[in-house]
């Protein structure tokens, strides 16, 4: 599979399965909607898209959009507009682990190119591609906001910072083998204290 960044495409697809909110999410939704004034429930579309993406294997299908539109009582095209605007809503299926490599200047100066190469080699997939075993999708993204700890990557919800080729390989290997990883700095730094 090759193509665009999964979050920067205007083409949505169906998953073929019905999407309905999980019990936990229904509870969260109630809470989220209550934060907005009456008549402004549609403002909750962004957190709901996020919840839907979490529940739906990390991507937004047409079914998700239709469910959200129904929940918030808003036109489907309006939900689609929001989902297509933000790059962090994936509009096509992604692998179990979405590897986002920061390529913005600070990380790039500290060698993000090497990290990209290592990841592509280890996961056996190109940028914007999903590996054959559906374990990884690799994308390059702009600044993720951990500049002082570059180069860095984000895998699903976790940041991995202060990377070099070796530590990157280790992280990927651990994921492949199902072993836990140390989250954050790979050099043992706390936050962004002086190295």
């Amino acid at each position, binding site marked *: 599979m090759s193509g665009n960044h999964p979050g920067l495409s*205007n083409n*949505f697809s169906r998953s073929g399965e019905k999407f309905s909110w999980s019990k936990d999410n229904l509870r969260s939704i109630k809470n989220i909607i209550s934060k907005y004034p009456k008549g402004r429930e549609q403002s909750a579309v962004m957190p709901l898209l996020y919840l839907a993406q979490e529940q739906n294997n990390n991507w937004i299908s047409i079914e998700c959009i239709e469910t959200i*539109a*129904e929940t918030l009582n808003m*036109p*489907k*095209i309006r939900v*689609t507009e929001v989902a*297509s*605007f933000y790059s962090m809503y994936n509009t096509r299926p992604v692998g179990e682990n979405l590897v986002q490599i920061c390529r913005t200047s600070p990380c790039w100066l500290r060698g993000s190119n090497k990290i990209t190469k290592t990841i592509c080699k280890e996961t056996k997939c190109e940028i914007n591609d999903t590996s054959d075993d559906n374990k990884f999708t690799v994308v390059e993204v702009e600044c993720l906001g951990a500049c002082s700890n570059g180069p860095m990557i984000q895998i699903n919800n976790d940041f991995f910072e202060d990377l070099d080729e070796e530590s990157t390989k280790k992280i990927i290997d651990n994921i492949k083998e199902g072993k836990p990883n140390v989250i954050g700095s790979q050099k043992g730094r706390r936050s962004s204290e002086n190295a």
Partner: protein
Amino acid sequence: MSDDLINIKVNQKEIQVDKNLTVMQACEIAGEEIPRFCYHDKLSIAGNCRMCLVEIEKAPKLVSSCTMPLMEGMSIITNSEKVNAGRKGVMEFLLINHPLDCPICDQGGECDLQDQAMYYGFDKSRYKENKRAVDNKNMGPLVNTIMTRCIHCTRCVRFATEVAGVPELGMLGRGENAEITTYLEQSITSELSGNVIDLCPVGALTSKPYQFKARPWELKRTDSIDIFDSVGSNIRVDSRAEEILRVTPRTNEYINEEWISDKVRFNYDGYYQQRIDTPYIKENQKLSISNWEESLKVLKDKLKTLKPLALIGEHVDLETGYAIKKFMSNYGKDNVECRTDNHAILESLDSYRFNTPLNDIENSDLIILLGTNPKIETPIINHKIFKAYNNDAKVFNIGENISLNYKTEYLGESLSNLNDENLIKALKKSTNPLIIIGSAFLNKIKNIKTLKSIFSYADKYKVITKEKNNLNFLNPYASRVGQLIIGNTTNNLCEPFFNLKKDNFELVLSFGSEHIANEQFNNCFKVYFGHHGDDGAMGSDIVLPTPLYTEKNGTFVNIEGRPQEAKKCHNPIGSAKEEWSILKKLSDELSFDFTPNTFDQLRSELFDKHPILSDYHEIIAVENSTSITPDIEFEDCKAEYPVSNFYMSDVISKNSVTMAKCVEEIISTPSLLEKSA
């Protein structure tokens, strides 16, 4: 000086304007033209094209004038070097990704981008990089898309959401990847969708049927009236030689504003299909080609012996109606009928017209729809109800539980649901309630008491007051109100056909009325005057060709009682003759009195007899005359809607290929609204 006025300067000229205006509107009042793409009077303000930049003194940067509110003492400059440079810059950016395909673009010659690039842009491009290309989107059988040309003004998106009331269009992606599309590229389901073509300032959305047909400067413009519903939208018919190539709206703030329905915009290909171009006479159960001389001779002989009845169809203009009445008066009274659908009326004008001026509908805070589906019967009125709905009006519906593009509260299927508790409660609270009763009930009412009760009901709940009459009668036919005003009806107010049966007519003259095919006329000699061969013509003994509304001059009175003129655009097809001239000829031969020799004489005689009709474009004034009965009693009748398929409601649209495509792609494919319901 009033509180609402403030002093500003536009290009050093001091003016006083309303403080609630924007800078752009103030500049327009001062006579300065501001270029724009995204701004449109009838839509919300977006401010995303940046073409309307102006300089405001003391402001560090140029300001987009469409979004900027006025302030006291503001000094606006629209002709400085800085403004010109700003416009040039914006124009250059807009043209970066715009293709240079004007020679093959349908918008060429009437394109805002083309015109403004000429006035405000550079004469050459400095852009060397590749232009982006965008896939074309499906928007249905009416709107053609070439999305590479789109400049993302979002007028179409705002129109669909705010005016048509179908939020199906949107802008996906962002920045260079922004694309306008319908949801999943489905067809737009609105009856007003064609208006996005006029709104689009570039050639991204153009008319599919008009594609590659003509250039605007080759077309002859004729002002006319939409006769496919009763609203009387003002239209402009563009033709070349003897063919109509497109229909566009004319602005009329009192009626259709800037919109027209898709039916009148696109059914013109049906004008030339299945036309009756020569007289026919039935021989051995089969219609065979005849000529005027022979057919009129046969008709004259029949008229000498048989007792005639005239039926008036839905597209008959006032002059023709008057000529028919004049001719039929030689045979006595009560022998002309335009209420061929059993439309119940009282004598007075306010019992069969839309009494609220159309642009006051939006001020109502409670609307009751009684047996009417305005969405498909009269899309323009539906738009006005949608406006009221957006102003927080409540809409109640009685009849069938129809699906509209706004929420209605359904009360039940019979007229007696008017006594619903919730409704009464809401009516008592309402300050400006409005009732629209449609043909679905009007055609079924058999007891005059019911009609009077509706008046009493309206009076009781302040729908009718001394100042206003908000009890409205809505029928979908362009001819009806006018024909009733000149009295082309029999005296049975509720069931006209009942009388016709009793009176034993032997000869039926149908002027475009398909009801000639009704069983009750089986034993009559039938003569059909019309332009399209359909059931009415098929079953007749003589068929005489008459011109279409675009092929003759004529007056139509719209549903609110406003006479308007439809002008002749080209000569009739084949040997069609205007109805009045046929009747004139017959009168001469039968030695009846028929003085007018020309159409103009006929018209001035009509206006002499009915002076209220001569004041074009003004609503006919009427005093609320209907007497109020104390008891309110509704008969039980089942609503039967006159229009079930918007795209095919009359002989002309039934013969239109474009309309057939609409049925296939919009109605037969389940719509977005239905799916979500």
